[in-house]
């Protein structure tokens, strides 16, 4: 009950919402680069929204199923097909025993997610199924998938309730994005000019872009007294500015602590826009307050809550009394 990897794609790994509780031991959080797509894919198939999915980079995998399943595909558009017939993204799909799911190169976005109803049968390591390849922790033997890997599913599903409602509309990812940031923790290490450069210049996404971070190029950001600090904690989205003055946005596999000044932190709700942005894409930063960032966080969470509530709602069978030829009949309608 599950699937076999026929072709692994460029870099396909198992990722959930991350490995929390071990940063004090030096273990990075990891988890999905695009948390929003992970959450949506899981909600569509009735999983806990933090459940592990397959995360595929740039060029997707080919999977052959040996049982029925319900899946959903979100994130980058890798033109998914089942048995060579195109299938839609962003909705729950039936898979039958023997079906082959495959993907091509992405048209829009970098990271694509596949959620499986019931979740993959992967043993959690330190409370998470996420793969951290550098230390070979989690996922399948701590590495990206290879041809021949067999992954089981923890529950058998051939359909889900409210199947027709399990979809949502998504806009394409853009190549010019504005990322909202909260200034700090080390904004006081930068000159006024440095801060104003950071908030007004246009930056370009470079090819130094992986699960650990994304280096940007553009106008150098000036510090007051160099860029070294006594190492402190690095949050996801932290914008590090080393000696060369080019901002680096720290992402899922970032180290737990580091010794470069951090001018600002991209809010969690905007990280998906960055991780799905192609190399050469244009980035601008806009400063907002912590209070405003919390309103945005709550609004995004409310949207997910609403979708989840709609899909998990149990529709009570509706009863009607119908008179036919003077006979009263009770008719029950259910989903």
């Amino acid at each position, binding site marked *: 009950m599950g699937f076999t990897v026929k072709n692994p794609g460029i870099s396909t790994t198992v990722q959930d919402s991350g490995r929390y509780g071990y940063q004090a031991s030096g273990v990075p959080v990891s988890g999905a680069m695009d948390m929003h797509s992970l959450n949506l894919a899981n909600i569509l198939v009735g999983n806990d929204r933090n459940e592990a999915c397959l995360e595929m980079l740039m060029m997707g995998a080919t999977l052959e199923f040996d049982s029925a399943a319900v899946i959903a595909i979100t994130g980058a558009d890798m033109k998914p097909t089942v048995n060579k017939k195109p299938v839609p993204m962003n909705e729950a799909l039936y898979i039958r025993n023997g079906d082959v799911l495959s993907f091509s190169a992405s048209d829009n976005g970098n990271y694509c997610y596949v959620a499986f109803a019931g979740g993959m049968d992967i043993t959690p390591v330190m409370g998470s199924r996420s793969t951290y390849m550098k230390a070979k922790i989690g996922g399948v033997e701590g590495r990206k998938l290879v041809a021949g890997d067999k992954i089981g599913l923890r529950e058998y599903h051939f359909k889900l309730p409210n199947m027709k409602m399990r979809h949502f509309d998504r806009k394409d990812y853009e190549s010019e994005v504005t990322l909202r940031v909260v200034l700090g923790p080390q904004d006081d290490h930068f000159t006024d000019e440095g801060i104003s450069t950071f908030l007004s210049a246009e930056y370009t996404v470079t090819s130094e872009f992986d699960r650990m971070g994304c280096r940007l190029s553009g106008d150098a950001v000036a510090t007051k007294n160099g860029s070294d600090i006594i190492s402190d904690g690095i949050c996801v989205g932290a914008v590090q500015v080393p000696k060369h003055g080019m901002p680096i946005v720290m992402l899922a596999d970032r180290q737990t*602590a580091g010794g470069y000044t951090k001018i600002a932190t991209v809010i969690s709700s905007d990280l998906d826009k960055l991780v799905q942005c192609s190399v050469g894409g244009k980035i601008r930063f806009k400063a907002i307050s*912590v209070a405003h960032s919390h309103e945005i966080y709550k609004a995004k969470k409310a949207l997910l809550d609403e979708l989840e509530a709609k899909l998990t709602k149990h529709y009570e069978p509706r009863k009607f009394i119908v008179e036919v030829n003077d006979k009263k009949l009770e008719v029950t309608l259910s989903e």
Partner: protein
Amino acid sequence: MDVRYLPLGDTGLTVEFGNEISPAINSRVTRLCDMLKTLNVNGIVETMPTYRSVSIYYDPSVLDLESLTALIDELLSTEIALNVTNPYVIEIPVWYSSESGPDLEFVASHNGKTVDEVIAIHSAPEYLIYMIGFTPGFPYLGGMDNSIATPRLDNPRVKIEAGSVGIAGSQTGIYSVDSPGGWRLIGKTPVKLFDMERENPVLLKSGNYLKFVPISKEEYFKIKEQADKGIYLCKMRERGV
């Protein structure tokens, strides 16, 4: 220096106690982490101690920043130490030799000392474990005698085996997993600092102390056999006892 609250976007807060590496500041870090752990505050996802600050990661839909900083103000002003434990000293056996530490002789000649003097100086202190980071389980140690300080290699080695003990400038540390690195290697411990087979994969905890204990090659392999089976326990004692 007053405590500073530094926001980390919408989901984090760094509580900074100062801008230097000192045991006094680090003990405030450990104390706050211990108290937060005991309280198990709803909405705090995890806490991350470093040299001089604590990064607190939280869920803003459960906990707002004002409530969080008010709680920390309260905890920092209280005299009662909530469940704060006394630090312990953990003994880490080390086989110091040119065979297990290819830079041992360089460290000695660089500092005008004999190899035995380097070993004696390196294994004398109780080192404070300031923080764990860099790689899973890697300890940042404080308290090395400057008389054995040695600059890093110009060309870092591509692979250093886990357990290697090294010196970089006036710092000393132990590689916790196989990784590249430029530290001068002086010996090796058979003990695993990071082992996913263990219930708690990470051996060391910040805020405690570490002492290196010289062992022979024979003892190294004897302990290694036990450590590989997961049945070796490091000696531990309360500090000052």
